[in-house]
C-alpha cells in the first residue's frame, strides 16, 4: 500500500463507514415512515371515497353518510381564522420589521414566539373562557378565532422575515423621493415581499386546517350543515376524530376516507408552496 497505515487505521475506517451507513439508514427509515403512512391513508381511504361521501352529512350507522358538512365547516372555519389571523399576523410582522424600535420590538417578538409554542389545546381553553362561556354556547366564531390565534405568530414571523429580506435600497429609493414611511411600506416593501408573505400564509392555513384540539370545545362539532356562525359547526378534523373513536367498523372506514381528503388538501398546499419557493431561491 502507499502510505504507512498505522494499527487502528482499519478500525477507524470501518467505524467511519459503519456510522455513515447508519445515518443513511436513519434517513431511509424516516422517508419510509412517511411513505408507509401516506400509503395506508391512500389504500384504506380510497375504498369509501365517492361523491356521496363528499356531499352528504353524517348519517346513523348503516346508512352511509359523509363529510360534506365537515368540509364546508372546515372551509368556514378557515375563512374566519384567516380573516382574523392573517391581517393581525401581517400587521405584527410589519411592526416587527418596519416600525418597532429594537428594545420594544424584542419584547414583542419574544411574546409572539411564546405564542408559537403554546399547545393548541391551551389556546382552545382560553377561547372557551373568553368567547364560549360568555356566549353560553359553542360557535363557529369561537373556533375560527381560536384557529386565527394559532395563525398569528406563524404569519407574523414569516412576514417579518420576508420583509427583512427586501433590500434597504428599495426603501431608501422611495423615501428619497419624499414618500412617507407608510406609503413606502404599504406601496413598495409589502408588494416586494408579497409572494413570500403569501407562501407563509398558505403554510399557516395548511397548518391550521389540521388542528383538532382547539376546536373540541370552541366549534365543538355538528351533524348538520352550517346555517349560522353563531352555532357549533362541524370540521373535517373533529369528524375524523369522532369517526375513528367510534366502535363501528363502517365509521372507521369513513375516518380513513376523510383522512385521505384532509391529507390531499394539506399535502397539496405544502407541495405548491415548495414549488413556488424553489423558483425564488
Amino acid at each position, binding site marked *: 500500500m502507499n502510505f504507512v497505515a498505522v494499527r487502528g487505521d482499519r478500525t477507524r*475506517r470501518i*467505524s*467511519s463507514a459503519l*456510522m*455513515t451507513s*447508519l*445515518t*443513511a*439508514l*436513519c*434517513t431511509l427509515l*424516516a*422517508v419510509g*415512515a*412517511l411513505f408507509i*403512512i401516506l400509503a395506508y*391513508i391512500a389504500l384504506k381511504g380510497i375504498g369509501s371515497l365517492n361523491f356521496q361521501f363528499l356531499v352528504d352529512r353524517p348519517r346513523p350507522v348503516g346508512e352511509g353518510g359523509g363529510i360534506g358538512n365537515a368540509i364546508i365547516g372546515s372551509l368556514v372555519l378557515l375563512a374566519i381564522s384567516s380573516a382574523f389571523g392573517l391581517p*393581525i399576523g401581517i*400587521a*405584527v410582522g410589519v411592526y416587527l420589521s418596519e*416600525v*418597532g424600535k429594537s428594545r420594544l420590538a424584542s419584547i*414583542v417578538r419574544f*411574546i*409572539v*414566539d411564546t*405564542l*408559537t*409554542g*403554546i*399547545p393548541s*389545546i*391551551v389556546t382552545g*381553553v*382560553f377561547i*372557551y*373562557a373568553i368567547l364560549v362561556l360568555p356566549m353560553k354556547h359553542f360557535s363557529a366564531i369561537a373556533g375560527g378565532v381560536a384557529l386565527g390565534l394559532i395563525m*398569528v405568530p406563524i404569519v407574523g*414571523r414569516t412576514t417579518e*422575515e420576508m420583509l427583512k429580506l427586501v433590500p434597504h435600497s428599495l426603501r431608501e429609493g422611495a423615501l428619497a423621493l419624499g414618500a*412617507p*414611511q*407608510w*406609503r413606502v*411600506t*404599504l406601496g413598495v416593501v409589502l408588494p416586494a415581499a408579497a409572494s413570500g408573505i403569501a407562501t407563509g400564509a398558505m403554510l399557516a392555513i395548511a397548518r391550521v386546517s*389540521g388542528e*383538532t*384540539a382547539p376546536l373540541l*370545545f370552541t366549534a*365543538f362539532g355538528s351533524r348538520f350543515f352550517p346555517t349560522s356562525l353563531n352555532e357549533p359547526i362541524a370540521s373535517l*378534523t373533529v369528524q375524523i*376524530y369522532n369517526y*375513528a373513536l367510534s366502535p363501528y367498523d363502517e365509521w*372507521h372506514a369513513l*375516518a*380513513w376516507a376523510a383522512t385521505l381528503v*384532509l*391529507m390531499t388538501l394539506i399535502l397539496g398546499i*405544502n407541495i405548491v408552496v415548495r414549488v413556488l419557493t424553489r423558483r425564488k431561491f
Partner: protein
Amino acid sequence: MSAATNKLTVGPGDWRRILSPTGNPGDAVFRVSMTAIAFFVVAIVIGMVIILGADSVLSIRQFGWGFLTGRQWNPIRGEFGALPFIYGTVMSSLIALLISVPFSLGIAIFLVEQAPRYLAKPVGFVVELLAAIPSVVYGVWGIFVLAPFLRVHIEPRLAALFGWTPFFQGQITGIGLLTGGIILAIMVTPIISAVVRDVLTAVPGSQREAALALGATKWEMIRVVLVNGAPGIAGAVILGLGRALGETMAVTMVIGNRPEISLSLFAPSYTIASAIANEFTEATDNLYLSALVELGLILFLVTFIVNGLARILVWNVTRKSGGLSRTA
C-alpha cells in the same frame, strides 16, 4: 397633499412628531395602528395567563400544591390530583425523545455532511413533510395500524425478552404508554432534525477542513462538527421536548386515557393535554372545570419554560442564518 403636509417643519411638541419621527400624519397613524395591533397580541398572551390563572383559582384554593402530587383523579368524588397526568406527559415525552433523538441526529448528519446536494434538498423536504401531517391523522394511523402491529409483533417479543423488568409487564393491548411514545417520536423527529440541520450548516467549513487535514476520517470529522454544534443540538432536543409535551390528538387516541401510574410501558396512561381534550366538555361542575383549567395552566407554564430555554440555545447558534422560522 393637505396643507398640513406642506409644512416642512413640524414642531417637537406636535402630535405628529411625537407619534412618528418624520412628523408625517399618515406615518403617525400607520405607526400607531401597527404598534397597537402588536400590543394587542401581547395583551392576548398576557390575557391568556390571567384567564388560565383566574379560572383555576377554585382548584388551586381547594388542592394547593397537593394538586401536583395527588394521585387520584376522581371527578365523581371531586378529588383531583394531577400526578398521573404529569407522569404520563413526562414519560411519553421521554420515550419519544429517547427514540427520536438518535434518528433525528442521523438524518441531519446524513443530509448535511453526506448527501450530495441534489439529494439533500428533496429528501429534506420529504422528511419535513412528516411535520405537516396533522396530529389527528397520526392518531388514526396509530389506532388502526401502529397499535395492532405493536400488539401482535413487537410487544410480545419485548415481554419475552424483558418481562422480568417492571417496564414490560402486564396485559398487552397495543394501546398504552409505549405506543404514545412511539407516535410522539415520529411526530417530533422532523422538527428536531430540521433544527439540527440548521445548526450543522452553521458550523464553519474551516472546522471540517481542520479535522480532515489532521487525518480524520469522515466520521471523526463529523464528530468535530457535532462538538461545534452541541449547544444548538441541545436546543433542538429541548424544542422537540416542548412539542411533545403539548401534543394532544395523536396521544389521546393511542395512550389509553387511564389516570393511573404504572411503570409498565404496555399499560395505558394519560397526559395533561389528553385529559383536557377528553374531559373538558364533560366537566359538569365548576371544580372539575377549574381542575382541568389548572392542568392547562401547568401545561402552559411548562411549555413556556421549555420553549424559552430551547430558543436561547438555538438562537445563539443559528443567528446568522436566521433560522428561527423553523420553530413556527
